[in-house]
């Protein structure tokens, strides 16, 4: 089952670096899996951990949070705050037994179109191995969407 399972990935990309990297990957015709749905945020520091948890609850199989390399942040320290926030969130989710490889974190600068594609490929493959999400996802026959 795992081979033809197409995971749904949500990626929170910071506008100045990782979103720009996604653009660059596109303009450079670099291929990467289409599973990712991109949410553009001003900065990785804008990503509230509840966004990530809410995504998992809605049935998203994997989440990527990407920002500028430390020191490159357009707002100086947004990514430093994100670094602390997601260090704690990742360990807390792991602690409660949630399969932690569903949450991926990456620094991708605006010039790293190639790295962006690699990161997406890596995220999709690692989540594909885990199969559809079971923990924290709302199982609700009425509210189950079509797929």
């Amino acid at each position: 089952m795992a081979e033809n399972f197409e995971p749904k990935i949500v990626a929170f990309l910071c506008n100045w670096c990782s979103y720009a990297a996604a653009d660059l990957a596109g303009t450079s015709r670099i291929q990467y899996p289409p599973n990712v749905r991109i949410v553009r945020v001003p900065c990785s520091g804008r990503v509230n951990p509840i966004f990530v948890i809410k995504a998992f609850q809605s049935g998203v199989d994997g989440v990527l949070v990407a920002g500028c390399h430390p020191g490159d942040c357009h707002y100086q320290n947004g990514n430093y705050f994100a670094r602390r926030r997601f260090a704690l969130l990742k360990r807390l989710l792991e602690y409660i037994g949630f399969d932690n490889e569903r949450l991926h974190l990456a620094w991708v600068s605006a010039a790293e179109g190639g790295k962006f594609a690699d990161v997406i490929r890596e995220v999709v493959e690692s989540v594909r191995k885990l199969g559809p999400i079971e923990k924290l996802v709302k199982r609700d026959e009425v509210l189950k969407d079509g797929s």
Partner: protein
Amino acid sequence: MKKIIEKAKFADFVGTLLSDYEVFAPVKNENGLVLFSRISSPEEIFLDFRNSKKPPKEFLFPQVETLFEYEPGKVKVPSVEAIAQRRLFLCVRPCDVKSFLILDEVFDTEEFQDVYYVTRRRNTTILAMGCVDPPSTCFCTTFDEMGPFSREGADAFLVDIGDRFLIETLTERGESLPLESLPDASDEDVQTAEDVEKKAVEKVDRKLELSKLGEKLDGMFESPFWDALHEKCLTCGVCTYLCPTCHCFDISDEALDSKGRRVRNWDSCMFPLFTLQASGHNPRPTSKERMRQRIMHKFNYFYKNYGVYACVGCGRCVENCPVNLDIRKVLEGILSL
């Protein structure tokens, strides 16, 4: 009629009930909480309890209930059959049985009948059990015709008289219970049951005199009594969520794209959103107004509207309040003004 169920044969008796009814009885769950839950075998029943943590009200007026589901252009109400099975509440305490009668006043009015509550209520047989050893937090005898052995509202009544139960049927629904194979109760059994009852009634000595309560409450809406009272209240929902007579609820929609459902959840007058208006105005912004509303509702407004207090003296709010804000002390404070 009065019959005897040997404790040794109680499991068989419950077995026969299970074949005719969905049976809900006190069960001790893995986390050590005694809760009423649906049982599939007699062994699950746990009788060494004073009262359940959550009141059995939750099976007539569930904490979460789907009112209807909807899709674009279509509203689907849950079929009445889904909630109309024959059910039996086993070993319910008299105070909780009385709470059903109080909830009936709200949900079963002829102008607007709450079909969800009324359907369940009309299909539920109530086999109550007297409190042989009522704890000190109980004050049910405060309310008229209420006590550890009051039978009002029950279809049949169990009294624990040592190695056996005396079961007394009170309504025809009670008579329709499978009691034929049980021996009749001897006069001696009946006498023992009466002694047990007398002892228990005396034990509930925290009896408040409420005759003047309504008139006192009428005059004290602006009284400084409320300022002193509310300060330690945290405005959490414990007292309302564990109360057998609290009936307030919230209605909200849960949706995914174009499909969804409308759900009714328990609500609490202690919560910030209870009376918060879209304009931002909230007639009851702090714990003072909310605590005053809780007391006024249960002991003044409800009495004015329905002629009965919205309290059965079960003591759950007394036992579980995180700051030990004891409603009996509140009432005594009001009565002494």
